[in-house]
């Protein structure tokens, strides 16, 4: 039962990573690509971590996994902002249809 949920969560996470990668490759400009990357990374990694935490040997191991997710969330969101801001300051214009 636990294995089933793990597999389900991991697959869902992989789907988000796939979507993020496709977005990174296909979206027209830096800002939309950042959007695809961070969205996919945060949710995809969250699902992966949830799936792995179910398999963890101890509560502290699961805690470490969740800590990793928290750190990636924090760093990902901040770095996406910093990159977008840097690009905007250098005059990279957002894509318009």
């Amino acid at each position, binding site marked *: 039962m636990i294995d089933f949920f793990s597999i389900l969560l991991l697959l869902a996470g992989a789907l988000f990573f796939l979507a993020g990668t496709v977005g990174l490759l296909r979206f027209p400009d830096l800002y939309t690509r950042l959007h695809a990357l961070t969205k996919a990374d945060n949710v995809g990694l969250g699902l992966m971590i949830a799936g792995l935490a179910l398999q963890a040997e101890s509560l502290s191991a699961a805690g470490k996994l969740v800590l990793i997710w928290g*750190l990636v969330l*924090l*760093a990902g969101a*901040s770095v996406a902002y*910093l990159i977008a801001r840097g690009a905007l300051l250098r005059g990279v214009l957002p894509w318009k249809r």
Partner: protein
Amino acid sequence: MEAIDIALGLFDLLLVFLLLWLAWLVMSSEDLFKAIVLFVAFGLLMALVWVRLEAPDIALAEAAIGAGLTGALLMAALDRLNAVKPMPAAAVVTSAKREQPSLPSKVLPLVALVLIVLGLGYALLSLPDVADGLVPNVKEQMAQSGVKNPVTAVLLNFRGYDTLLEMVVLLLALLSVWSLGGVRKLSPRNTNPVLASLCRVLVPVLILVSCYLLWVGADAPGGAFQAGSVLGAAGVLLLLSGWHVEQKILLWPLRFILVLGSGVFIIIAAVLFFTQGGLLTYPVAQAGWLILLLESAATLSIGATLAALFFGGIPKSRVDQ
């Protein structure tokens, strides 16, 4: 069980090809920025390779130093390069035209490369199929090492002077950077509120992780180099966010921390030489504590050295003015 073996085999193959491909891209990329990003990706994949080879200690070090801090150092160097003066495009073209490679200069490197590949191939093929190496020796002596992690036992006890020399190499690297001149002033950049708040959360966590890695190194993967590089990363983050350091700290206190690792090593080595009759031959009862002491000092020095390397020039202090 077989399906998973095949899957892992395919994964390993993919890893090897990706690694080679990335290495080629890094070498052939004309855009230096792109090359650095690819180099970081290469380092992360290399860390995965170490994980697959069941060497988590090296994987940690590779991810933290090889991918993380080296990437930051290269970026800082590129930033400095761009600031110097970009070569005009015309000059690049003419210098490329002027240097028409002659035939010997094309053939000689090729011959050298072929010789090296043949030599390496011969060395690899002439290795014995199964070799224990020094593993049985290390296992036999583990009880006397004072720690439970064989990697730490080798690095800090059995081959302690290797680590001592590495500390000195790191110090020498910083000295060479400093001797290039370029006194740099700590300039508070236009501090960004998001970066500042990221720092406020991340730096304490990084310090905690560093302490954890240092402590856990006694019986699991971890140790001074991993802990030091995490500490160095915290320093880099602080420097990027316009960290204000008291001027008086930058002269003697900073230099004290920089030489602390090598210094404690040399002092302990000297004391042990006169009391035990050998450099870094710890008495068994005190080995654990001596290793912890050495690693703590080394961690501080490595962290400070890496952050100072990222900073570049000698930090300007009021005394020097």
